[in-house]
């Protein structure tokens, strides 16, 4: 689109102002996490920590067993990620590369679960896991990922698989390949970028999950970072230096994962929105 110089300048100015508003909370987080309390509370606010209180991070880390929370979170995140990537891609294959009667109807029915509020399934699921004796374990948070890994991910991968030319499978068929071989030797390797998208969404989804752990985990030693941070807030009210240091530690891994996988993120969201 051709644009006048004036419109462009105005757009620039607006973008800079908006970006500043989006960035300020991050700056506020980092600067607070590196200040001592007396400087945090000065009015008007100061922006540069003097001196830099790196010790805040250490104090936050030792105030609560964040190493345990981190390990718990990683166990859940990695288990969920593996299950999601494997089972959602297998299901997406079945919904796109194999022709069978009723396929699209079944897929449409599964898709309706995307609009279902989690509140409706929350209580019976909880009771079910409790009856099986898995309350206060990681199983309720991990096992569902091994059953399709969420319809959203299947949908995303199916969209991608539909774009791979049919001839690939046909040729392999002629050579006597089975569906399993076509999946593992052709489709799975070809869909690397889409699988990365699913893996990234899965990582963030379980890393950020708050309600799941809140419902299913009772013992402190099983807490995830999200729960731990919330507990921290309850104990250290108004200790904004420590609270911000702890928050920063929960945010940083997400930011790193995002910056590394940025290209895939944007691709993935575009894929869901455009063809939705």
């Amino acid at each position, binding site marked *: *689109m*051709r644009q006048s110089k004036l419109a*462009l300048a105005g*757009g620039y100015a*607006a*973008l800079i102002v*908006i970006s500043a508003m*989006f960035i*300020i*909370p*991050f700056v*506020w987080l980092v600067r607070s996490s590196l200040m001592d309390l007396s400087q945090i509370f000065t*009015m*008007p606010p100061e922006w540069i920590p003097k001196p830099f209180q790196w010790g805040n991070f250490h104090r936050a880390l030792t105030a609560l067993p964040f190493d345990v929370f981190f390990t718990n979170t990683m166990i859940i995140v990695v288990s969920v990620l593996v299950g999601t990537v494997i*089972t*959602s891609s297998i*299901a997406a294959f079945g919904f796109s590369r*194999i*022709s*069978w009667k009723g*396929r699209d109807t*079944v897929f449409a029915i599964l898709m309706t679960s995307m*609009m279902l*509020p989690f*509140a*409706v*399934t929350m*209580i*019976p*699921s*909880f009771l*079910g896991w409790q009856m099986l004796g898995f309350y206060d374990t990681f199983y309720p948070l991990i096992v*569902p990922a*091994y*059953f*399709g890994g969420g*319809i959203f991910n299947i949908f995303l991968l199916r969209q991608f698989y539909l774009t791979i030319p049919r001839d690939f499978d046909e040729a392999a*068929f002629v050579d006597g390949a089975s569906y399993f071989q076509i999946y593992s030797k052709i489709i799975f390797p070809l869909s690397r970028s889409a699988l990365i998208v699913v893996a990234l969404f899965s990582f963030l989804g379980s*890393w*950020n999950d*708050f*309600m799941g752990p809140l*419902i299913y985990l009772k013992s402190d030693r099983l807490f995830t*970072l*999200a729960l731990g941070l*919330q507990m921290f*807030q309850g104990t250290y009210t108004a200790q*904004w230096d420590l*609270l911000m240091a702890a*928050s920063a530690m*929960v*945010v940083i891994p*997400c930011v790193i994962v*995002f910056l590394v996988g940025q290209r895939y993120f*944007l691709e993935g*969201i*575009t894929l869901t*929105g*455009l063809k*939705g």
Partner: protein
Amino acid sequence: MRKGLWYGLLFTAPAILGFLIFTLGPMVASLVLSLTDYNVFKDQTSFVGFANYAKLFSGEDDLFYKSLGVTFYFVLLRVPAVIIISFAVALLLNMNVKGRAVFRTIIYLPSIVPAVASAMIWMWLMNPDLGLLNSMLEWLNLPTSNWLYSEGSVIPSVVLTTLWGIGSTVIIFLAGLAGIPQSYYEAIEVDGGGWFSKLRQITIPMITPTLFFNAIMTLINSFQVFNEAYILTQGGPNNQSLFYVFYLWRTGFRDTEMGYASALAWVLFVIIMIFTYIVFKTSKSWVYYEGGERP
């Protein structure tokens, strides 16, 4: 392809089983539970028919209407705010400016911040005595606010905190904008139309399918807000932020009235269905599909 059905079912079995076990099964169970007085700490459970629903609507439980009102207010405020602001930001990002990718990253980044951390940051920004927002307002000689801590401002404040995370809505709009053919704009230019006629005659009609998608998703999400209520406000002050799902969680898990909470869940489900249906129905009059096709 031979034996397609057998293989098709084999490959999709995990997903189908998952749907039956983790979605359909619990849904039915939830409906059944909602017709009982199930409570973890009571010895026996009996079938009570529609008593839970009757109790909800009779007005006996005033917190039900309270939470419904709070949630409607939140949805009414949040959905238009998210849609309008995301669209405006996407329009800006769609301009041919240098550093687009950097702006895009900055605007998307907050949406990946974990809800607990985001809540923590905003509680601190909105701290009435020492937070950044009030000191900025003071500096500008504007009246300060109690933000999350006063009855009148708590809901708008929660909406504000969620606006920080509009990144993915913006990106979806941006993808929609990228799909509009340049030639359409050139046609307007030939006719001597300016920026505004391009927006009104091309961009807005062409973006309606994306707008529709974003509106539905934002609507569904807004009805189910929980984390903010739990972490930021615990429903306060004076129940002014008693969001529906928070009230449901409290009823089911803290007060262990799981039968009653299941009825609450089904009411929410029906409300969301009705709203989604309305948006779908009205979409015929405002969503434009190229070639007259509907998905």
